[in-house]
């Protein structure tokens, strides 16, 4: 978990970790209730003649694992001790995957419906089972956080990327090849979403900034001074394109030159368009919502793939999968 630190949280870490893991839903509580129900619920033989489920078997399947996890994974001392050997700050929450939460809850729900809600007489039996099923579904729904609570977005195309991504890629390649037919790998700087997506669609477009640098920038780590002081020139591009900082023009140009970035893609609503034009970038194309701008790099050498010919004994040809 990025937002939690074991050293700072100490023995309280596991509780915060569980809290964040199940934030906004009651599934951990449901898991405990299901576990207790499956392990200890009395078999109500007085009401139904043939309760079939084997409580001892259920107990053997789910309870021992939970007990061992209670002593280890859920033990407040464990993450602190583990962190002294390995840095598990980001990954500790994955230990919580071991608890069979969905399985246990679903088994408990099924047992409740089929064994405890059953009644004599077919009509009565179905009604009681139906009501019980509806009640359990209601708990699962009301007690959770719906995956599409922010709205269900239908994928705009079969590639599951914004429709303008292929258009942006096409504009960049067309322009790069018109300037230098050997420039098969132009480098670009884009806004957050496009920077994360473009290379999934077209890996022949190189990027100036990697994911971590971008996340650091948008999460507030990058400020004006750092953007200029840092020898990592990608920060200058991030400062302008991602954060809208008006750093001196020559500093931004230096960023473009040092990273070999010839293209900047911004949305039409981005306030920095004028700034980019003032830096010498010119528009080479646009899509419905984005503008592709080009910067003429001095002493630009097109990117080429590393030469493994001596090892491969063949001439590699990239495979064209694009639309």
């Amino acid at each position, binding site marked *: 978990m990025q937002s939690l630190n074991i050293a700072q949280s100490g023995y309280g870490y596991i509780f915060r970790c569980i809290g964040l*893991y*199940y934030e*906004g*839903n009651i*599934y951990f509580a449901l898991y405990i209730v299901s576990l207790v129900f499956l392990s200890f619920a009395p078999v109500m033989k007085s009401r139904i003649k043939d309760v079939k489920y084997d409580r001892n*078997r259920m107990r*053997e*399947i789910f309870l*021992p*694992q939970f007990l*061992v996890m209670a002593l*280890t*994974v859920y033990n407040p001392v464990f993450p602190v001790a583990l962190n002294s050997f390995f840095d598990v700050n980001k990954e500790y929450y*994955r*230990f*919580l*995957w*071991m608890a*069979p*939460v*969905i*399985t246990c809850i*679903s088994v408990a*729900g*099924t047992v409740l419906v*089929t064994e405890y809600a059953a009644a004599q007489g077919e009509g009565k039996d179905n009604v009681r089972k139906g009501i019980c099923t509806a009640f*359990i579904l209601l708990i*699962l729904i009301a007690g*959770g*956080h719906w*995956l599409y609570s922010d709205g*269900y*977005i*239908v994928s705009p195309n*079969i*590639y*599951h990327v914004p429709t303008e991504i292929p258009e942006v890629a096409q504009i960049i390649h067309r322009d790069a090849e018109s300037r230098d037919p050997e420039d098969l790998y132009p480098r670009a700087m884009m806004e957050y*979403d496009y920077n994360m*997506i473009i*290379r*999934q*669609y*077209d*890996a*022949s477009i190189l*990027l100036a900034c*990697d*994911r*971590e640098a971008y*996340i650091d920038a948008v999460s507030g780590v990058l400020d004006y001074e750092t953007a200029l002081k840092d020898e990592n020139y990608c920060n200058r591009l991030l400062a302008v394109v991602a954060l809208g900082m008006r750093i001196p023009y020559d500093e931004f140009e230096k960023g473009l030159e040092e990273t070999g970035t010839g293209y900047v893609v911004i949305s039409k609503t981005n306030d920095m368009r004028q700034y980019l034009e003032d830096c010498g970038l010119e528009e080479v194309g646009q899509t419905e919502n984005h503008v592709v701008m080009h910067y003429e790099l001095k002493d630009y050498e097109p*990117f080429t*793939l*590393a030469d*493994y010919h001596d090892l*491969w004994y*063949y001439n*590699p040809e*990239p*495979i064209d*999968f694009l639309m």
Partner: protein
Amino acid sequence: MAIVQALALVLVNIILFFLFGCAIHIRGISRCPWSRRPSEVADRGMSLSRTVFTGFFFYYLLFSVCCIAVTLKWRPLHVLTKLWIAVVIAVSLIGVIRGYALCKPAARKAASFINSHRPAFIIMTLVFITFAAIVLISYQFTLDASFYVGNVTTSLQTDTLNIYDPFTGDWQDHFEMRYFFATFPMNDAVMCSLFRIHPLLWCKITMSATAMLLTFMVMYMMGRRIFGDDAGKICLFLVFSSVANFFMITIYTTSTFLTTRNYEGKCLLANVVLPGILFVYTELLDDVKDIRAWLTLLLIALGAPVLSSSSNMLVPAMIGVTMIPLAFMRKDIWVIPKSILCMIPGVALTGIYILYVRNIVVFYTYQR
């Protein structure tokens, strides 16, 4: 047309897993064949779903062996593709030969079971199709796709294996050890190259659907273990688990990985591998000396690190939390050494990663 191809490839994946499973299928044996004790052989026959399950791990284990060998020699992706075609053909042939006799009774049994519980199976199928359709049609923006899908696209573009940085496209002077043994994305690249399909289609449709199908299959297998032949209960169990998977959502949960990041190996780790270990545990509860169950556990331990490097810590941990109580409950001390043996692959790979972090073991991408 491309979407039909992508969906048809889900079937190809399942058939391959099944054939790989047939190739290594062993009958359920209660006692070790070389034991001096009176042998109690309980042949439980072949289970189609269990064969796909074991075949899945065997498939990725074999792939990883081929991939690591090719990667260490800096050979290109197309060499790995050719090698993998040869391996797939060889293993599939063995699978067909071995499976031919075994499949008939298993398929007959399965067909008869489905026929006698038709309404329940119709509902299960509808639940799965609805679940998969909702997920596959939706648009999800996830940060990790920039690595996992980006890595596949980059490998295809450059015809290399793990040499270029998926985030930027720049050349790397050494292999990132965190992902070196987790060759799952390289299998995606090989399959894209083999079937001439765009990585986005393969990852976000074919592998997403495959991951959901495998998850449902493992849940179904758990349902069979818990509720036996009562298809109605298994159906209700799957309905509850499907609904729960749409609602147990934060950015960390197994359900989130199943519904939004299902093209990643981590999704398979959380939703197939870990429940799969629980499934094997239920088999061992019935017979702690079941050789087939122990070999399956070992296969999971060997195959899981290919899916995600997180397996290196989670699989040994899951084996620990399930098998330690088993040893006490069944009062069998031999459970401990067998479990430790199954933990070795994960622990060893963790050790190699620690050596890498301390700069002791580094694999370079060029000849030094």
